């Protein structure tokens, strides 16, 4: 297939051969990804596999060493992060990055930076264009808070929210950029079973009601298997498998990446199973991490 044909089919997002090294470490090596509008795709892999680096490359927080990325058939490689955000790619962070001192509502309003079209002078003098735009922003921000069930807490400082709600708020803020592609970095990290189930439902609604395509990094295999249409598995910066959750779950290389080689004695003992073929992972393959420090 030619480049153009690929881009036509995967008309939302397309990247190939993205690579990034930190010193001698190849964090990401030849990463390819195509996204169709309306998909939910999971990016999984053991710790240090380069998943977050992939997000940083896509969103422009870090410059890619080589390769290219297209968003809606527009060449976005090397654009600064804020330009990519303007084009419609939003993200959340593994360690939540909210503005703790600002109110919940103001946190969402920040996301409208892309869309509010009034200048410094209009703001300083409170011209009608400013008032109109601000009313609009407040209304839309409240709508996103309601979408995530946070409307009752609009006036509270964001730092005072409990952990699970902070995750939701970050999601609301990412959505409020009116992005077409949403990158979620471990959205279920630190959540309990109930909260994870709620989050899964929210992500489904994000797709069905808002029409937003989702790419997520997640370690909770139960959630990933149930939610994602397709999975991409990374290990040491390389893509080792891609396909539907069932295909990926049965892939020997994936199992090896997560559990180690079957012939190693310790793995069998730890598993408590002497069967020749390890079962596809159903449970989280490692303890979920609590919120990591920045």
């Amino acid at each position, binding site marked *: 297939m030619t480049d153009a044909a690929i881009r036509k089919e995967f008309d939302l997002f397309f990247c190939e051969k993205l690579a990034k090294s930190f010193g001698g470490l190849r964090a990401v090596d030849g990463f390819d990804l195509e996204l169709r509008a309306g998909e939910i795709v999971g990016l999984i892999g053991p710790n240090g596999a380069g998943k977050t680096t992939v997000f940083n490359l896509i969103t422009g927080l870090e410059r890619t060493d080589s390769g290219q990325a297209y968003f809606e058939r527009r060449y976005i490689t090397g654009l600064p992060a804020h330009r990519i955000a303007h084009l419609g790619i939003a993200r959340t962070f593994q360690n939540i990055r909210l*503005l703790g001192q600002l109110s919940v509502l103001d946190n969402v309003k920040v996301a409208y930076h892309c869309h509010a079209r009034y200048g410094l002078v209009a703001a300083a003098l409170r011209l009608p264009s400013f008032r109109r735009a601000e009313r609009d922003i407040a209304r839309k921000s409240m709508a996103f808070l309601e979408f995530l069930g946070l409307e009752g807490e609009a006036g509270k400082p964001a730092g005072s929210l409990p952990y699970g709600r902070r995750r939701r708020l970050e999601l609301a803020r990412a959505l409020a950029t009116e992005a077409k592609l949403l990158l979620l970095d471990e959205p279920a990290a630190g959540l309990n079973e109930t909260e994870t189930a709620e989050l899964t439902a929210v992500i489904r609604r994000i797709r069905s009601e808002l029409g937003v395509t989702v790419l997520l990094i997640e370690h909770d295999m139960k959630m990933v298997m149930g939610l994602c249409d397709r999975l991409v598995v990374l290990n040491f910066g390389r893509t080792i498998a891609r396909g539907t959750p069932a295909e990926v779950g049965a892939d020997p290389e994936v199992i090896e990446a997560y559990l180690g080689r079957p012939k190693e004695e310790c793995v069998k003992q730890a598993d408590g199973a002497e069967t020749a073929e390890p079962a596809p992972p159903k449970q989280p393959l490692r303890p979920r991490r609590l919120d990591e420090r920045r």
Partner: protein
Amino acid sequence: MSLHEFLPLLCQAGIFAILAMSLNLISGLTGLLQLGQAGFFAAGAYAAGLLAIYGTVPALGPANLILGAVLAAAVAALFSVVIGLPCLRLTGDYLAIATLGFAEILRLLLNRLELPGGAMFPNERIGGPTGISFTESPGRLWPAHPDYNAEYTSWWLVWLAVAGVYLLLRNLKFSRQGRAWMCIREDEIAARSMGVDVPRAKLSAFVVSAALAGAAGALFFHHKLRICPNDFMLMTSILILLMVVLGGMGSFSGSILAATVLWFLPQLLRHIHPKLGEYQQLIYAVLLIVLIRLWPGGLFGAGELPHWLGRLSGRRRVNA
């Protein structure tokens, strides 16, 4: 304290209130530690002073002051662009040192600056360590009162400017731009991902801040009519920073209150006992340490006074 002593102090307190608010924009709201505010203050004061000496048009009357303030703001803004483009790549302490360096370099250059006296002082040279002076402010809106000395040009004009600057900055704070600045203070990476052009937003905060400090410089010249480079020492920058910290980082109304309190404090102490006035610097230093240690939020935290009033009267800021 007689009116004769009080009005000049009130005037200076207002000028420092503007300076404190301008620094609050960059250090309190945007979170960039800036120790060179005296530099922009000096640039504005000298710009207004030189305009007054070389270019006063008597027919314009008070408009000369407005012209001076506009020119001062423009010159300070120009300086801030030149300084800001390279320096704003720095963060934290490094930016503080770089801006401090700028202010000191400018002060030392002004020490060496000597200019012909122009039409006003045809046989003299002006500038240098003695600075520049002017006989009568063209900004005076009414004839000097015989009992008062020439110094306090329309204190109410200064406080009108304070109110104007306050409204302007408060409006900015609750706008798209203000949210972007606060976002940079809290988390730069989040700001970038939300679509904020961080270098540009920093530069805009820096330039607006410097322009306001420059305008304050114009008021300062027209108030004192005699300025010299030593008016703009590092201590001036520190004093402005102390006002910002005392008032609350990010609270413009807090800056006004803190500037007034801190400007009158030494005078009050001098009234209690003449010796106490000598310990002004010591008191400032101790105050800064105690504040940062025990009361980092300052008087008003990050909020604004009218916010409180709004809450008292039951009006909610959270819109429908």
